[in-house]
């Protein structure tokens, strides 16, 4: 299984994330891979008995490895599993940022989980945090050869009731921030240490689905992603350089990354189109888009459809928009 997962990780580095927990009974005594309490905790969650056991999105279990270490056929099977799961969508997004302390002994981080749409919160949904070390050259006795152990679990930061981080957000646009830290062992290769975050429903009785995951090397986790001198959490556009933080509509989203900045979605520009100079275009296509909206009111928060500014959006607004377009008064 390890070889198959390694191959898949190389193939899909951005959409597949893993952690491996080592069974104390199947790992040599001189290895520091064992975390008996953590192993027990996570294994109990999925009713893990024998190994190898892989758990996919907290929902699908596969038990058993490659006979005679011929792993290629396992790779083909699990490739199919990956293909089945990767098409799924999630309402959650996880962003991480952090910084290694000057003495390199502590990593301080912030986890931001945000919701892109209203989503009924499942009871028992938590932010789960792990630390893993990637690419540890190890001897695998069962196959009589060495390999790169991928994403070996080093810590389970949210293990136990006292450390749980219950998720509380359920509406579009909401986000939840958790700040924390962990000790970085001197025996780890810091360049390969990852922080991993999940949104997962923890159930004692049954399945524990994972709704989203993210993992990043701690040294690749800049505190100021766009390099504009303003830390991500304080930056009104963390991925777009905007030192001046211009925010014309004062909605805390900077103009350079705000689709609703009042520059494109102006009154009458129903479909939000613009020319090469980012000037809004108001034409007959907007009439058609408005007509569609009246038939089926699916829109976005940026649209300004109340042309008459009477608190209602209806055919009268459409008529006035038609007049505006015909008169060229836009």
């Amino acid at each position: 299984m390890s070889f198959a997962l390694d191959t898949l990780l190389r193939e899909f580095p951005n959409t597949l994330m893993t952690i491996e927990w080592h069974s104390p009974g199947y790992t040599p005594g001189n290895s520091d891979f064992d975390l008996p309490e953590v192993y027990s905790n996570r294994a109990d969650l999925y009713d893990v008995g024998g190994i190898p056991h892989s758990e996919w999105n907290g929902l699908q279990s596969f038990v058993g490895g490659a006979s005679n270490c011929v792993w290629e056929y396992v790779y083909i099977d699990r490739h199919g599993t990956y293909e089945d799961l990767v098409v799924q969508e999630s309402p959650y997004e996880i962003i991480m940022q952090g910084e290694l302390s000057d003495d390199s002994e502590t990593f301080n981080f912030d986890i931001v989980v945000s919701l892109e749409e209203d989503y009924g919160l499942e009871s028992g949904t938590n932010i789960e945090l792990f630390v893993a070390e990637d690419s540890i050259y190890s001897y695998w006795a069962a196959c009589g050869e060495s390999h790169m152990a991928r994403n070996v679990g080093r810590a389970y930061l949210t293990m136990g009731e006292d450390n749980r981080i219950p998720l509380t957000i359920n509406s579009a646009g909401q986000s939840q921030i958790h700040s924390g830290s962990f000790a970085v062992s001197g025996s780890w290769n810091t360049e390969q240490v990852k922080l991993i975050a999940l949104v997962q429903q923890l159930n004692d009785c049954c399945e524990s689905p994972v709704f989203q995951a993210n993992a990043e090397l701690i040294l690749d986790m800049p505190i100021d992603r766009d390099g504009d001198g303003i830390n991500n959490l304080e930056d009104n556009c963390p991925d777009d350089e905007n030192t001046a933080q211009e925010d014309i509509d004062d909605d805390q989203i900077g103009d350079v990354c705000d689709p609703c900045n009042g520059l494109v979605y102006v009154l009458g520009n129903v479909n939000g189109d613009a020319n090469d100079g980012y000037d809004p275009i108001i034409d007959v296509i907007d009439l058609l888009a408005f007509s569609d909206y009246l038939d089926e009111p699916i829109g976005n928060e940026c649209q300004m459809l109340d042309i008459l500014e009477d608190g209602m959006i209806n055919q009268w607004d459409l008529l006035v928009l038609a007049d505006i377009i015909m008169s060229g008064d836009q």
Partner: protein
Amino acid sequence: MKKSILNSSIKIVVLSTIVTSAYNQSIEDHQSKNNMNFRSIVENASRSQQVVWVEDFTGLN
């Protein structure tokens, strides 16, 4: 911004008559395409791809 509703109504009726008679099918196609694009944008904007997450219980022996 606020114009005469009557004036607007007359203009839109004239416009509708001309457009409907000459370009009815074209507009329907355009509306349909526009509607689909619009719906697609809204739906795609609201969700992210879910990362596939695997926990591998294993050993070195």
